[in-house]
């Protein structure tokens, strides 16, 4: 099972730690384009983990486009304009910050850029009843 399971466990543990005991929960998760998490696997894993605790889980996934901004020249560009080799894409999938090892600002060539949105996994909302 791929490492999405570990991220699903993180989301589940967050829910267990913050929400009171409930039979049904609704989790809204934002997924940054940079980490390229497999939505189906994440949703399946999260439902399974919750089910093992007797909790029915509705999962809402929101994909967020990734935008990068150079800290040196201020240029902003979307990740979708960048073509990575498969192996690089996989490295970024595990640790998104390694994008700095494989990408430079297309305008000035600096690696000192930031991911201003669309990095990774973020819980937006948890509801329960």
């Amino acid at each position, binding site marked *: 099972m791929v*490492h999405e399971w570990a*991220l699903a466990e993180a989301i589940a543990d*967050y829910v*267990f730690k913050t929400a*009171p005991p409930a039979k049904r929960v609704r989790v809204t998760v934002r997924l940054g384009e940079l980490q390229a998490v497999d939505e189906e696997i994440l949703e399946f894993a999260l439902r399974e983990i919750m089910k093992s605790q007797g909790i029915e889980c509705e999962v809402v996934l929101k994909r967020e486009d990734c935008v990068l901004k150079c800290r040196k020249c201020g240029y902003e560009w979307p990740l979708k304009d960048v073509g990575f080799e498969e192996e690089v894409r996989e490295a970024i999938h595990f640790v*998104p*910050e*390694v994008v700095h*090892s494989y990408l430079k600002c297309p305008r000035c060539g600096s690696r000192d850029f930031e991911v201003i949105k669309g*990095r990774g996994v973020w819980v937006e909302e948890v509801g329960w009843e």
Partner: protein
Amino acid sequence: MMIAQSDPRLAVIERRLARVARVVPVMSSKGGVGKTLLSCLLALALSERGVRVGLLDLDVTNPTAHVVLGADLSKFPEEDRGVVPPSVGGVKFMSVAYYSRDNPLPLRGWEIDNVVREVLAVTIWGDLDFLVIDTPPGIGDEVLDVLSYFPKHEPLVVATPSPLTVASVRRLLKLLTEVVEGELIRVVENMARSDSSTVTDLAKEFRVKFLGRVCLDENVDEAVGDVNALRKSRMYGDVSRIAEKLLKGS
């Protein structure tokens, strides 16, 4: 009812470390005192004594423990409901270098924190008697993350008798003794050339344990990258004595 907006990775770190008995971050605010070599040799020495050991290279922007161990970076670690650290010389070894390879990894503070959170959230250590952590110099993100994210740890502070090191490490010990129980903090002297009492005096000043001296081994660089050669080095002999003391709970 609703709650909103959070990084879920922090919630799972406790679970990932639940089966790790002892966490030993190897720290020194001064660079060049031999933290990485000492971390690697300590992990190898503990492993040789039959205990289950992990080694985490937390020098995020400048990882080099893989160079010491000769770890193979050509393949990503395997996945099994997370990332499973490959075994190198009997040590479960994890590093961001598996993903950044030998490329530069220039990161700002919050990005370093993100890497640490990610690695701690997805690494499946399993049952460990010891997790040794190699940390970078300074008192920056990685060191603060160790203090924040590891519920209990036993810092091993590395110093040399140099006045610059002593001035720097004194600041680190001041910080550590504010947040960690004194009996869990240990000091070792590395690159020792004589029986100078400078480092033992520093340990006494902060009422923390002095665990021993590791003599300067001018030949150890020749063994870098080869676990078997490292285990035959003079430095390994000295570090093994430190490992014995750690095992006995000194």
